[in-house]
C-alpha cells in the first residue's frame, strides 16, 4: 500500500515540480541549487527527475541555459526565457484554478444537487 502511495505521490509531485521550477527560475539558478530550494520548500526532487525536466523545458523554449566555467567547478545555470516569462503567468493562473477546484472537492465533495442529477 505504501509503495502505491509513494508511486502516486511521485507522479503528483512530478507535475507540480514543473511549475515550481519555472517559477523559481525567474532567478538564474544552477541545477543543484534548485534541488536544494525545492527540498527546503517541501518538494523533494531527485536529480534524475529534475535535470531531464529542465532539459525538456529548455527544448520547449521556456528556459535557457548556459555553462559558467568561471567558478571552482563548471555549473549549468538555467533561467526563464522570454517565452517562459510569457507562459508562466498563464500557467500560474491555470494552477490556481486547478488547485482551488481540487481543494473544493477534497473539502466539500461534489456540489449539492449535482450528484443526484448525474445518477438519474
Amino acid at each position, binding site marked *: 500500500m505504501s509503495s502505491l502511495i509513494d508511486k502516486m505521490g511521485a507522479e503528483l509531485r512530478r507535475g507540480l515540480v514543473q511549475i515550481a521550477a519555472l517559477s523559481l527560475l525567474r532567478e538564474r539558478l*544552477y*541545477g*543543484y541549487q534548485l*534541488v536544494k530550494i525545492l527540498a527546503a520548500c517541501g518538494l523533494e526532487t*531527485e*536529480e*534524475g*527527475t529534475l*535535470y*531531464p525536466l529542465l*532539459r525538456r523545458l529548455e527544448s520547449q523554449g521556456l528556459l535557457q541555459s548556459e*555553462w559558467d566555467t568561471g567558478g571552482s*567547478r*563548471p*555549473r*549549468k545555470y538555467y533561467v526563464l526565457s522570454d517565452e517562459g516569462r510569457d507562459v508562466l503567468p498563464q500557467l500560474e493562473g491555470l494552477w490556481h484554478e486547478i488547485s482551488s477546484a481540487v481543494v473544493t472537492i477534497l473539502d466539500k465533495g461534489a456540489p449539492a444537487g449535482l450528484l443526484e442529477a448525474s445518477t438519474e
Partner: protein
Amino acid sequence: MNKPAQDAVRDWLDAAATAMGGGAERRRDALLELETTIYDRVDERTRGGQVPEEAVRDVLEILGDPAQVGSSFAPVRPLIAPHQTRGFILHTVMVFAVHFLLVIGATVADRGLAVGPLRIHPIADPTNFLSLLARAAGTLVFHAGAVMSVYALLPRLSRIVRFPRSALAARTDPRPSVESAIFFGLLLVALNVFRDDLFALYVDTGHGVSQLPFAGHGIVDNLLLLNLWLGVALGKELLVARLGERRWTLAADLLTQGLGVFALLRIAATERMVELAGAEEVLKGADSIGALLNSVFVVLAMVGAAMLAARGVRLAFRLYLLRS
C-alpha cells in the same frame, strides 16, 4: 579527494552514460551536470566532517541506480512517431487487404498464386473458421511488422541522410521545386548509367562466372517503367516550378502517384525481380538468401505502392474539393 573515491564517481558516471542514449554532446552535458552535483554534495558532507570515501558512497546511494538515472535522460523515441500512427495503421490495413484478397483468390481458384517470390497458398480448409482466422492473423502480423520496419527505419535514416523532397510528398503549397527536379534528373541518369551493376545477372557457365547481357532480362520492362516514373516526376517538378498553381500541382502529383503505384505493383508482381550480383547462380546455398532479399524487396515495393496509393487518394480528394 583520493583516487578510489574519484574512481567510484567515474564508474557511476560511466554506468549512467551507457544508459543515456542520445547524441555525444547531449550526453557530455548531462554527465558534467551530474558530476558537478555529485562533487557539490560530497563537499557539503566533507565540510561536515565526513571522510571523502564515505561521503562519495552516501551521495551515490542518494542519487540511486546509475542506469536508472541515465535512462531518465534518454530522449523518448517511440518506434512510430505519434503523428505517423494513423498512416501506419492505414498502410498496414491496405497491404494486408491486398495480400488477403490474393489469399481469398487463391482459395477460390483452389491453387497457389505466385506474386514475385511470394507464394500465396490457398487456405487448406476455408470452411473452418479457426483456420481462416489463423491465416488472417498471421498475414496481419507479418504486414504490421513489415510496415512498422519501414516507419521505424525511415525517420532514423532521415536523421542520418537528408533526403531531398521526393515524389512521395503531397504538395499542397506550390513553390519552385527546381532542386527536386535536379534530384529526379540525377536519379534518372544514375539509374541508367549504373543499371548493369544494379541489376546484374551472373551465371556459372562451367568455365567461370559470366554476366548476362542486360537486354533480354525480365527486369527491362520494370526498369523502363521506373525510368518513366522518374521522368514524369522530373517533369512534374519542372511544371510545378513553372506554373506554381495549386490545382495543377495536385493534378501533377496525382499523376506521379498513380504511375508510382503502377510501377511498384508491377515490380512486386514480377517474378524474380532483382538478381543481386553474386546470388544463387554463383554461390551454392545462397538460394535462400536471394529469395529472402527478393521477398524483402517485394514487401517494400508493396508498402511503397500502398503509401503512394494513400497519398493519391488524399490528393484526389483535395483536387475534388478545389474543383467543387
